[in-house]
């Protein structure tokens, strides 16, 4: 949805325009925010941050001096920045004030360092491929369980299975995934 399309829709109904934009970019934004905050934030924090991202995007789309064209990159940038801000706030609150000379400082700063080495990227890529190779619904179950940290009951609704069946499949898929990772010499 370009800014032009948004404005056209907003002229008829602001809420509908915002909903269209939200629906189009929700998965993308949620995943960026979750990916950044999963280690330190509650689900409520993540939801607030997602809401914050979209509110900012609506406002930017309202602005006269925004931009034309595909806004995906812009939306992603807002999401990354908001998530980074919240990460800083949450970790700062949790850790309190730490001197930069403190040995702990390096650890606290580490997640902020976005230096994404080739190794990390390769690991991510291999990991994702291994998960995808499990096929459906196992790959979804594994990601939901161990990345998005959803309960079996929640996952059961997504994959139309009983919670018990989810647990069984998850257990088998995890075993299979471990074997594949071990064969590839990947340890997590």
């Amino acid at each position, binding site marked *: 949805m370009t800014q032009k399309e948004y404005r056209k829709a907003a002229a008829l109904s602001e809420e509908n325009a915002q909903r269209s934009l939200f629906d189009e970019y929700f998965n993308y934004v*949620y995943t960026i925010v979750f990916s950044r905050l999963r280690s330190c934030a509650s689900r409520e924090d993540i*939801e*607030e941050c997602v*809401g*914050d991202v979209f509110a900012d995007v609506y406002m930017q789309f309202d602005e006269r*001096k925004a931009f034309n064209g595909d806004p995906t990159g*812009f939306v*992603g940038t807002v999401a990354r920045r908001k998530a980074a801000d919240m990460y800083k706030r949450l970790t700062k609150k949790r850790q309190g004030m730490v001197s930069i000379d403190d040995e702990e400082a390096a650890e606290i700063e580490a997640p902020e360092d976005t230096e994404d080495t080739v190794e990390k990227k390769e690991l991510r890529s291999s990991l994702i491929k291994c998960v995808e190779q499990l096929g459906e619904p196992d790959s979804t179950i594994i990601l*939901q369980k161990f990345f998005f940290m959803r309960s079996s009951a929640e996952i059961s609704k997504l994959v139309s299975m009983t919670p018990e069946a989810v647990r069984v499949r998850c257990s088998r898929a995890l075993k299979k995934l471990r074997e594949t990772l071990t064969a590839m010499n990947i340890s997590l």
Partner: protein
Amino acid sequence: MNDKELNLDALENADEETIKIIAADCPASDEEKERMFAMSRKIYKERTKESEYKNEVEVSGVDVYKRPVWLKFAAAAAAVAIAAGAITGGSILLKRHRTPHIVESSEPSAFAMSPFGDLSSCKVRLSNAGIAPAVFEPREEKRKALLTALNEGDWNKISPDTPLPDGETELIYLKDGDRKFLLTLYGDHTIAYSDSDTQNDARYEIDLDTENAVREAIKYDPEAGDKLIYSTMYLYDPINSVWDEEVPEDPSAVDVFFPITQEHLSVSAKNCYYCYGKEWDPEAAVSCERIPGLVWYFGETDWKEADSQPNLIADDNTIHFRCTDNDALVTYYYTLYPSGYVNVRSENVEKSEKQSCLYKLDDFNINMIETGFRNEIRGATSSMTPDMALRYDPAISALLSRNDDPSKLTDVNEEDMKSIVKAIKAHPWESLPDDAECGKPVSRLTVTARLNIYDYMFEFYDNNVVYEMSSSKKYSVSPDLIGTLRSISDRVWGEEAVPAEKPTEKAADNETTDNETTDNGDSSDDAEILERARALYKDAIVRYKEYTEAGVPPGMEMDWGNAPNEWIGNMIYYVLPGVSSKDEIVEMFLSEFSERYHANDLDGDFPYLERDGKVYTTSANKGNNISYRDTELTEIKRKTDDEIFFTVINYYGDNGIDTSAPWTEQTEFSVVIQPDGSWKVGKLTIPY
């Protein structure tokens, strides 16, 4: 890790490609999504002051807030005390006069100075359009003056659903113990009160003296002791979260990541400078003090050392950034080339040490920095007056009208453009309210800046008022500026040998202008040249947009729906079939468009980029000028040995969409004559 666990932390903070894959499995339920959507709307509404309760509030007329009578006695007593020379006693009385010391009361608010109680002991943080979203804590003297004005002002309560005016607002965050609230000053002399517990903001009219005092206090002046705070406050709860950040020891310090040593440098934002261009230009370089967010992107970048040493040539889009440490001993230099190479170095004058390293950033990272810079600068300049904005976002072209005839504009050469911009910068522009009187329009000026999407379109009036049409803002300017522009206009238009006349009917005019004389004299050859140029010009506009915006060179087919696509950087790119290298497209492009003007038009990664033996494209229509009506190539302007220049008149306004008074803009079009006699498109300005 036990057998039932799997650590997927490696997927945290993932790159774009991984995000795309994981996003397909986004688990949020409809209920969660709805909650987040509602949250986004709530935050948005709070931020924009849109009240969803406005229909529920009944208009109850004007409720005049009664200023406590005792205040007048206290003020009078203070005045008497001072007049009597009792300076000490008077000062004490003045200091204490805000304290409800008269008697104990069961209604403490009865002694309040403002409708919200005695504000004199409040902590204050302020924000205005110039520094938002940052806030600042005013120096003590200013804090006291502000609170005194608020306490002593006349507040008349008005209906909360009184329409909010357009324009900027000033924000006054107040904290008294645990109590936190916000006063928002609007351009219609009203202030709204809001806190976290009250749904409906109360709104008050204030007297002019109070308003002036507030506006004076809310001007950010770092040199006078105001302390800037880059707050990370949440939009949905700014009233409370604005207080989360402590006042930094050095309020102007920013965190600049220096990749060579992997250090985060704490330097003053005023010691950070940037400019765009082929080389560092000290005159064009501006401080990051008002755009401190620029440096954020260095810390988020994935810095990778280049494995080769290419011959780097800077162009107009090259970014130069410099900062100096607070002791002025070490200077850090960053040169960011659009190709993704970044030359980083430092010089320590005390130790005579130098460090340098060349980095090659991938598409995502260089796009992040370039887009980030662009957005930060656009954001900052959107709230600046034009004289300031053009320092941060330099002009690249301008059109100026005839004096006393704002309906005709012509493009000006680089030298005149510089003179115009210099004059704009040399004279302060003062913002005026939306309802400021405009006199008779006398001239117009359009300035295109490097980064701003919208041109500055100034209309000057005979009462020294300027209306900037893109932003609908009004300014008061010095008569000296108008005088300078008039003399430039005289010179520019004086150079036009044959002033362009507006045709009455385009179709009829096309026929008649074929027979018009040119400055080279009437000739059938020239008539043929003109006709040929008209056809080329019309075609060139369409083809240029196809090459540079649509992302599909003329004659090529693209099935966007089914083309293989990939996230590259922060955009989706599609494989362009039938092309094996970007050079092929550039070659096609330059076979029609002369290298003299267009050699670098397809540089960078937009809309084409080459990767792994494939050419990718992306499309983003830049949009059209809604005021555009028509274009006409009217005459041969001049000729050189290998180039012919033509006058182009573009017609705007009164086209059914834009109903403003019509105007014309005069630009140049040229053809570059090839050795074989064929033509290539030379100078070309897209009119819409």
